[in-house]
């Protein structure tokens, strides 16, 4: 339960951190909050020979509005800070809700938004809601920077689009528009445990009360945040009736996700939960979109 030796660097600017990554490449790991990386090193599942500690880089920790009414977060924004932030609660309430489900109070004082995304755990709430909100991430290296859409960032289990010399430096989340609603529901044996499965739903209504756009993204339902594209197709352009919602939930659980079985739950049980949770999430999201006055007959 002790990590193997490594070389340690504590840069104070992003430039220095990128220089370290450029020099050490595959052998190096950026250290953000350390709430996933350090346990993996304690178990020796991860054995980086160089750690580049990002905790002394003040320019990576901020939350501010962008030009389009959305929010920009520095990668080293800690969960607790994000959870208590008024701008986040107002512009992206789905993120505010997600934070409550992350780890324990002691994990949330250290863990960071960018660290969680870079870890690319398919059971992570922030990865899932970032895809549901159609967010994008800024990746930087010494060669330059690029923006990657959240749904293209997560490639597989613990695998992201990050190149070894790249650092995720900023998260951009569009504002949840008017006439939109959201929901995040998950099932865990105990609060704070990794969820057996969960789903984030974001819906937008047009002037006639029809579903203009729906997005449902599952966690712990495949090797990355799993977007229910076929289910969303059933909802688009439709009145969100109980029947349509049930049909979308059935489609999501049967066709859109690829849950595995393990000691915590069988794949079949996860599919069952997916169906129930999708229905609940869609009802709640549409209800919020209608400003709480709508009745979708749950």
């Amino acid at each position, binding site marked *: *339960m*002790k*990590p*193997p*030796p*490594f*070389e*340690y660097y*504590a840069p104070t600017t992003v430039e220095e951190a990128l220089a370290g990554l450029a020099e050490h490449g595959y052998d190096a790991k950026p*250290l953000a909050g*350390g*709430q996933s990386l*350090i*346990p993996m*090193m*304690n*178990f020796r599942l991860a054995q980086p*020979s160089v*750690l580049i*500690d990002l*905790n002394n880089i003040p320019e990576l920790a901020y939350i501010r509005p962008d030009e389009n009414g959305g929010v920009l977060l520095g990668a080293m924004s800690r969960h*607790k800070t994000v959870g208590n932030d008024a701008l986040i609660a107002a512009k992206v309430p789905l993120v505010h809700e997600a934070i409550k489900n992350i*780890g*324990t*109070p*002691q*994990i949330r*004082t*250290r863990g960071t938004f960018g660290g969680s995304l870079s870890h690319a755990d398919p059971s992570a709430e922030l990865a899932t809601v970032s895809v549901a909100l159609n967010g994008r991430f800024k990746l930087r290296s010494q060669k330059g920077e690029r923006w990657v859409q959240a749904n293209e960032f997560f490639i597989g289990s613990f695998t992201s689009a990050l190149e070894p010399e790249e650092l995720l430096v900023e998260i951009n989340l569009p504002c949840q528009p008017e006439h939109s609603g959201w929901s995040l529901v998950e099932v865990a044996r105990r*609060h*704070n445990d990794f969820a057996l499965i969960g789903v984030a739903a974001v819906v937008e209504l047009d002037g006639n009360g029809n579903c203009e756009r729906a997005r449902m993204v599952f966690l712990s339902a495949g090797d990355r945040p799993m977007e229910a594209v076929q289910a969303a197709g059933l909802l688009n352009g439709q009145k969100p009736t109980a029947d349509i919602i049930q049909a979308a939930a059935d489609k999501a659980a049967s066709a859109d996700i690829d849950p595995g079985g393990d000691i915590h739950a069988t794949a079949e049980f996860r599919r069952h939960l997916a169906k129930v949770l999708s229905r609940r999430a869609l009802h709640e999201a549409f209800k919020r979109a209608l400003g709480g006055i709508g009745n979708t007959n749950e």
Partner: protein
Amino acid sequence: MNNLFNLSVTVNGTLYEREVEPRLLLSDFLRHDLGLTGTHVGCEHGVCGACTIQFDGEPARSCLMFAVMADGHNVTTVEGLGTIDKLHPLQEAFKEEHGLQCGFCTPGFLTTLAAFLEENPDPSEEEIREAISGNLCRCTGYQHIKESVKTAAERMRA
């Protein structure tokens, strides 16, 4: 690889300067290098909460930090909360309300809760439960722990 790092950290108000290996966990540094054995080590992967300390006032898992990350920072361990002669109100309440049996988990509860009550001096039942959700007690003591928190909170508000 034997690259030593010059660490300078304030623990319970005292500045310590030590040479450490980067891979040394903060929990082991506190126990082995400083002899502050009040910080307990349970699971060493961030689940049990026994090793919780306050890092710049915020409760954190010392097994999920390297000692080098504490360079220039303030750490408070259970030894920094109260003394034998003058216990912290939480320690007093844990003693009176039977908030512990074997005591292994207790330092983690105390450091977590001391920070929690600073932030939230009048917590609801639900908030207390959430606050201690990251600390495992296997002597089945949660009920008494909760009562201890209420008693301590009342006294600290008075």
